[in-house]
Structure formats: structure tokens, C-alpha cells
């Protein structure tokens, strides 16, 4: 397997394709990142398309979790389109970097990115949550590109530790990225894993907390106040970075910084807005696990028209 470098100047593959194009975009491989190559407009375009996919998928399914999917769009877009080494034509490539969606209810954002990268045809997004689909209501390993079966919160960071330990045993330089919800940090197992990763000095592991401040019922502050969250990760001996989670430059910079940290894992607390990009969903816990109806979908798509 040859590691490809994304050629930003000639890349037609990253251009917007029509919303339901059957053509899978060509794969992204490990991108050489430099600030000159940010191509922010390109990333923003992908993010907009992913947001439209999220609201369409949940609307078509008449269920699902748009809020916490929309809050993680920039994080996943950056990982899949700029940072991670992966090969959509070979999802089990052993040298790949791993992305693990611990908050597996946010699978619409993952499916949208996987389809964008070409792991499966875009039209398959319409089968989300429906019978005989590979796109389950919570991320499951049978979907090409999905690393972990989830659906019960708190397990992904531990799974990521396992993947990171395996990479180290094999002498692979694969990196492991785990996305956690901030509400998910109520789970005790997160803190078992938070203890174990620094104990094993896993500098190939990055935990990203989607700090959107809301959980299923209400705000994290009201439900279970986890502040000071960054201090908690620091006290567990993680290299901890706090960023604006919708800023591509900030996400890229944090992920690059993580690569330079030796002997300990990195936690990135990404401050985000739940429902980001759809005015009536933003900062409203009601949209944690509810699909837009037809009118709401139309309004959302108007707002996301770009």
C-alpha cells in the first residue's frame, strides 16, 4: 500500500459532487499538512455537504441523532479529509489510522464522511436505520470504515487503548482517534480508560471530547456537571488542549500538536455547538435524538445551502 499525499492543487476529487451522486469520491490518504495547504473553503464545503447529509438522513429515517452529529462535523471532516491515513478501498488496511466513534449515536456524521470518502456509495445514506441496511442506528462494525460497534456510552476510549496497544506491539505508526461526548464523560468507564492510557504511555492515542454542553435531557451542567473538565484530563496525566471545535485551523493545529507529544496521550476538549448550522437545532437538547419533519428539513437545507 502506497501512502498517497493529497495533491491540493489538482484535486478534483474533493470538489462538491451533487447531493446524491452515485460516484464515490476518490480516497484520501495521509495528507501532508501545512498551513499553506489548509484550503479552508474546501473543508467548509465538505462540512456543509456533511451537514446536509445529516439532516437528510435523520429526516428520511424519521429518527436518529442530529444534534450531536452536527456538533462534530468539523472534527470528523478534518480527521477524514486532512489528518488520518486511511484507504476507503481497503477498510481493513492494517497500517491505517483508526477513528473510533465512542458516542455511537452520532453515526450520521460518520456515515456522511465515510460516504464522502468512498467507503460505500452515497445513495446508501438513504438506507440509514432502515431494514436490511448496513447503516445501523448506532455505529456497528459491519459498516465499511466503522471500527467499533457502539451504542452503550463509555466504551470507545478503552477500545481505542486496545487499538493503540496493538499498533505499538506491531511496530506500526498508526494513530488512534476517539471521539467522546461530553455527556458521555459521565460514564465511569471513561475514567478507567483515562487512567489506563497514560499508564501505558500511549502517545499514539488522541481523545477528542465534543464539548457541546448538552446531553439527552438537558445541559451537562444541570444533568451532571463535569467541570472543570480539562483539569480532570490534565490530572489524569493527559496532554490536554482546549479549542474551538468548529474551527478547522484550531482542530488541525491541535491534532498536529498531539503528534509531537511523546510518552502520554492527548485529550482535545473541543467546544462545540450542538445542532451547529441549523438555527432551530442549535443549543437545544430537544434535537439530541429527534429527526426533523419535512418542513424542518426544508428549512435546514435552506440554511445549509452554502
Amino acid at each position: 500500500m502506497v501512502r498517497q499525499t493529497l495533491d491540493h492543487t489538482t484535486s478534483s476529487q474533493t470538489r462538491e459532487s451533487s447531493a446524491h451522486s452515485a460516484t464515490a469520491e476518490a480516497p484520501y490518504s495521509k495528507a501532508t499538512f501545512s498551513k499553506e495547504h489548509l484550503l479552508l473553503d474546501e473543508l467548509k464545503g465538505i462540512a456543509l455537504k456533511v451537514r446536509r447529509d445529516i439532516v437528510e438522513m435523520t429526516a428520511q429515517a424519521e429518527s436518529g441523532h442530529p444534534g450531536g452529529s452536527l456538533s462534530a462535523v468539523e472534527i470528523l471532516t478534518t480527521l477524514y479529509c486532512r489528518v488520518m491515513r486511511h484507504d476507503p478501498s481497503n477498510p481493513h488496511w492494517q497500517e491505517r489510522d483508526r477513528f473510533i466513534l465512542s458516542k455511537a449515536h452520532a453515526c450520521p456524521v460518520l456515515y456522511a464522511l465515510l460516504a464522502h470518502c468512498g467507503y460505500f456509495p452515497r445513495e446508501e445514506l438513504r438506507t440509514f436505520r432502515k431494514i436490511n441496511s448496513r447503516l445501523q442506528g448506532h455505529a456497528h462494525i459491519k459498516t465499511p470504515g466503522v471500527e467499533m460497534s457502539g451504542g452503550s456510552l463509555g466504551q470507545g476510549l478503552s477500545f481505542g487503548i486496545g487499538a493503540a496497544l496493538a499498533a505499538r506491539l506491531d511496530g506500526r505508526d498508526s494513530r488512534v482517534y476517539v471521539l467522546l461526548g461530553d455527556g458521555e464523560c459521565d460514564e465511569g468507564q471513561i475514567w478507567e480508560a483515562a487512567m489506563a492510557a497514560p499508564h501505558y504511555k500511549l502517545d499514539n492515542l488522541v481523545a477528542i471530547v465534543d464539548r457541546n454542553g448538552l446531553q439527552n435531557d438537558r445541559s451537562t451542567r444541570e444533568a451532571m456537571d463535569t467541570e472543570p473538565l480539562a483539569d480532570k484530563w490534565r490530572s489524569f496525566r493527559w496532554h490536554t488542549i482546549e479549542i474551538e471545535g468548529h474551527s478547522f485551523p484550531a482542530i488541525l493545529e491541535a491534532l498536529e500538536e498531539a503528534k509531537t507529544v511523546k510518552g502520554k496521550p492527548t485529550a482535545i476538549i473541543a467546544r462545540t455547538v450542538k445542532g451547529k448550522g441549523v438555527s432551530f437545532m442549535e443549543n437545544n437538547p430537544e434535537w439530541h435524538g429527534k429527526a426533523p419533519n419535512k418542513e424542518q428539513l426544508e428549512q435546514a437545507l435552506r440554511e445549509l445551502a452554502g
Partner: protein
Amino acid sequence: MTTAASTRETYGKTLLELGRENPDIVVLGGDLNKSTFIHLFAQEFPKRFFDMGPAEQNMMSIAAGLASSGKTAFASTFAVFGSGRPYDQIRIGISQPHLNVKIVVTHAGITAGDDGMSAQSIEDLALMCALPGFTVIVPADAPETARAVREAAATYGPFYIRLSRSATPVVHQNDYSFQIGKAEQLRDGPDATIIACGIMVKAALDASESLAQEGIRCRVLNMATLQPVDAEAIATAARETGAIVTAEEHLRHGGLGSIVAQVLGEHCPVPLEMVALDRYAESGRAEQLLEKYGLTAEKVAAAVRRAVGRKARPSGKGRPSSRRR
């Protein structure tokens, strides 16, 4: 005179051998590494051994992560901490994606002994047999443990292997050939079949010998694999002997007896008696607990007599078993 040998020590030694043969084997422990004998592996392969402390949820999910990257992950602790405690992690993280994780637990059942009921896993077989695709094995003795652990390592998929704290009477030769999912016929007779697993296999053999002196001749099946169960052997035994007794160190619900009852109901209903637990036990020495809670050769023999007695009754007129304590 039957000798006894530790199944958990045999596990530790077998795992060490496997570690020498297969560099992709990794082992996880939960701060009980000497008790489970995985410290033998840890001493020789420290880089492939991961102590998670008593954090079993974390341990199971990390095992899943290792397995997803191509490792054969053995995770070992006491039965109570390797089944019920991290059940959600096993269900979603290991069973549903069908990952190559081998959960090998020790100190199962009431023979965990004086640590009391919290330490005595008597529900674990129900929990683990409820997971589709999980292979569940209860070896009868040390030779079978060695074979089962080797088979588990060589066979892709999730396994649960249940071992004991106490030394277990040896009923097999060292050249014994174990097959996953196949019942082993240890004795044959036309009057009834005793189906047992784990430490109750020896009790079943002892019962069959005392019954033979009364003229009741029994088939004895060692049903080491509870899932996938050898339904054919059960149905054949029912057809050919007409009465079944099960014996296990587990609750009546969801273990060997329940599984056998299900097979009989579907294929060949005959009188069935179960020798099993029906409540939580207490602190005590293993042999005291087995006696007090009815897991003895005498109780197995009594169950066979009842089952054989029910064979003669007109169908549907059998009274409910009166043996319940």
C-alpha cells in the same frame, strides 16, 4: 484413586505455551493475575501482558480493541468479574461484532467457597449462553482445560471458558481429544442419561457406578460445550435411554439444565431432572457447600432414580418433582 489437578494452573501453563507459539496472543488481567495463573504468561511476555487493575469494563473493551487489530486477546479474572460485571462491554463490544476475545475465568460456582455469595458466580452460564455466537465451555478437569484453551486459541471468535478455584478430579487421560460442540460419552447404559459439565462430571461418574450396583445402568455425557450445544447427542440420549438428568454447578435457570430442557422440548420430550442450585449460597469450604447445596453424587443418583421412575408413568401424569428443597 482419582487424582485432582488445578484447572486454573493448567490454564496458566497452557497459555504460556500458546504465548511461545503465537506472537499475536495478548493477555489482559484484572489484578488477580496470580490467582488466575496468567502471571506465568506475564513473566515471560511482559510486553504482551496488560494489567488493568480491577477495572473489568475497561479490560473487556481494551481486549476488543486489541482483537479488532488482529490480536487473539485472552482476558482473565474471577468468573463474577469476567461475566456479570462487564456484561454490557462483552455484549456490545465483543459479542455483537464477534471479536476474537477469549474470556477465561476462574473461581466459578459455589466452590469459590469462603469468600461467600458475592464471589460465587452461579448465574454466569445463563448470561454468557444468552450471547449469540459466544462459545461457552466448562471443562471437567485439567486435561480438558488444556485442550479447550488450545481449541479456543485456534478458533476465531469469542469464547467463555469457566474454571474452578479448587483442584478438580481428573477424569481424562492426557491424550484426550476435545472437540468444541461435541458431547463426550464417558459411560453407556440403557436406563437413563446423566449429562454433566465441569466439576459435576466426576459426580455423575460416581453416581453411575453406585446406580449400577442397584441395576440402573446409565449413559454419562460430559457436555463441556454449553454453546453451541450438542443437541444431537442430547436427543439421541433421550430416544435411547428415555430419561435425562443434568448436573451442574450453576443455577437451574439458564445453565446446562435449561439448555438440555430446551433441546428435549424441541426434539424428544422425556422425563428430565436437574441437579443444580436454586438460590444463593454462603461462605464455607467447597466440599461443605457442595454437600449443603446438593451438588453431590448421591443427589445425582437420587435424581436418576426419580427420572427412571417417571419413565413408567403414563405420559402427562407425572407429578411435579418433589425433590425441591
